[in-house]
């Protein structure tokens, strides 16, 4: 338990960011973005701390967290693979990439592999439709991806 608490300690920058934004109206979403930036998702402990600091009910925070796709309340894999599901990518076989990832990783969408290394999700248009279908791992964008390239892409991060 103590270790858990330790894990979600707010950095000084995060604390001062929240203090700065506390003065502004409509700050909750901006604060949650900053928290997610720090932890890659919004853990329950962090949500509770935000509730305290901004003086808003925890229920309201979860209301917002669960409404917006961008916020994650479960820890993603070390490498979270994003498959673009914009229309252009869909037409060019984005759904096939999702199936293949399921096969290769052995988990379904938004689940994490046993070793905690990978998870994947389909995301809204990432806006490089010229490269469709597109897959993103961290900062790296893979364009014109075919199913048989997937094992090779995953191997790079293993």
């Amino acid at each position, binding site marked *: 338990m103590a270790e858990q608490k330790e894990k979600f300690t707010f950095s000084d920058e995060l604390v001062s960011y929240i203090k700065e934004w506390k003065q502004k109206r409509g700050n909750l979403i901006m604060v949650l973005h900053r928290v997610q930036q720090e932890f890659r998702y919004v853990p329950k402990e962090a949500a509770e701390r935000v509730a305290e600091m901004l003086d808003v009910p925890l229920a309201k925070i979860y209301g917002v967290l669960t409404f917006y796709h961008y916020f994650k309340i479960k820890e993603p894999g070390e490498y979270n693979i994003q498959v673009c599901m914009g229309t252009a990518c869909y037409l060019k076989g984005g759904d096939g990439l999702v199936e293949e990832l399921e096969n290769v990783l052995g988990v379904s969408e938004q689940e994490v592999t046993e070793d905690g290394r990978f998870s994947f999700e389909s995301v809204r248009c990432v806006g490089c439709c010229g*490269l469709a279908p597109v897959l993103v791992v961290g900062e790296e964008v893979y364009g014109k991806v075919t199913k048989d390239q997937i094992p090779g892409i995953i191997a790079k991060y293993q």
Partner: protein
Amino acid sequence: MALTNYILVCGGTGCESAKADQIYKNLLTAAQASGVGDTVQILKTGCFGFCEQGPIVKILPEDSFYVQVKPEDAEELIKEHIVKGREVKRLLYDKSESKKHARVEDIQFYQKQFRIVLRNCGFINPEDIDEYIAREGYVALERVLGDMSPDDVIQELKKSGLKGRGGAGFPTWLKWNFTKDVEDDEKYIVCNADEGDPGAYMDRSTLEGDPHSVLEAMTIAGYTVGAQMGYIYIRAEYPLAINRLKAAMQQARDYGLLGEDILGTDFSFDIEIRLGAGAFVCGEETALLASLEGNRGMPRPRPPFPAVKGLWNKPTVINNVETWANIPVIILKGGDWFAQIGTEDSKGTKVFALTGKIRNSGLVEVPMGTTLREIIYDIGGGIANDKEFKAVQTGGPSGGVITKEYLDTPIDYKHLQELGSMMGSGGMIVMDEDDCIVDVTKFYLGFTVDESCGKCSPCRVGGRTLYNMLDKITKGEGEIEDIDKMHQIGKAMKKASLCGLGQTAPNPILSTLRYFEKEYLAHIKEKKCPSGKCKELISYYILADKCIGCMACARKCPVAAITGERRKIHRIDQDICIKCGICYETCKFDAIYVG
């Protein structure tokens, strides 16, 4: 030493994803190494629009247009083009020997385009305010603050005939005028940059390529309606655009073009960035305002309209990025000039993100009234891989399809609506014979169902019911009555839903039922998917006369459903086959048949 060359590297997200940043860095290093670091200026610009051929590098003054450049090509570009003055032929878009250069205006992709919104994209360094100013940037603001009354600005907008580019097409001047006429000392300006339409990226490219145009326009609006504060609500998924906006805002403040006492007048105006968090419904203006206020992005009934009661219940002007980017030009060149462009019903230009099964995907800006045929065939170069054109989808999840018979329709708000589609924000997705219309419609419905905020039941329940019916049909379980039911539910949703999302969500169904009823019937009655997309309705076979027994498909099959020896005809065991289609993609002899 005087500059001899400019090198422009496309810094749009598409090209960045294809390592444009590395190309830029390699060019810098190579220029230094070759001793031409002082005579050549290397810039990263906004999107050139020709995404299909990215990453793009343009070298001035020769106007050489290099395409599909790789980081390792940088050295050759410097050594050959800059040092020796010889173009690198293999990287030019037009490699023909007869022409000395492949000039930008010779490229058919650009010939029918007319750029107002994207005027600076691909020309200037978006991170340098001086370059924007050099192209008449902030002159409109200066003119407005110096010589024009708020009513003059409204008049100019009225003359221009500009309508909102976010989709609905409401006259911009009218919106501004409502807000201007409300007595209140607290008013707001909002830029809607929550571009959620899947397959559309016009606004992102505009912000990445020319952020100052939006800042300038918002400031003009602040002066016109009497607001001191503006917000840009932008998707968190657009980090590059966010960073360029932040940099631009800081530069504008340093130059006295934003903040206190702008340009020495007593008018003060500032802008703040707020991030969206991935909710399509937040493109709807009242939902966007709820989100800006830090809440769940749920729409509310209108009236009162945001122009009168908007952000924190104060009068608020909301326009989308493309609308904003038009404003400085209208002030500079006059409303009359703008009104000459386009059609009776729709003035100016429209930016489209042309994607899908098209040869040249990219960003195109054309005068209103250009026909779909011109965009798809002249600019887009026709259908990729010589397939047959099936339909073009405009308006995204709120729009509909347009078929071959209507390709000569001039594009404007009115005509698209008559055809059962809509302008939307500018996504234009081309489909070919391989795309199943029922499946694509299911894709759009899946999107809107997922994005419905759940507040009103016509949208929440109606959308889900429609989706379930489509799902049934694609699985071969559809019934003939479903078609009537879909019509009924769709019409009810249009009438009874609270906001634009629910009101337009049935459009993809209603429009495809109108043009492609036969294809629905094939799924329902014959239990067949004519395009071979719907898995439950197709089987893969091996054609005996084409199979050469190379074993390629058998090796790739993930479930070992294909049997056969080398040089003997293979067979697919239908009981084992999971219809993944890998054999079809693998076979080089067209021996796999889908039916």
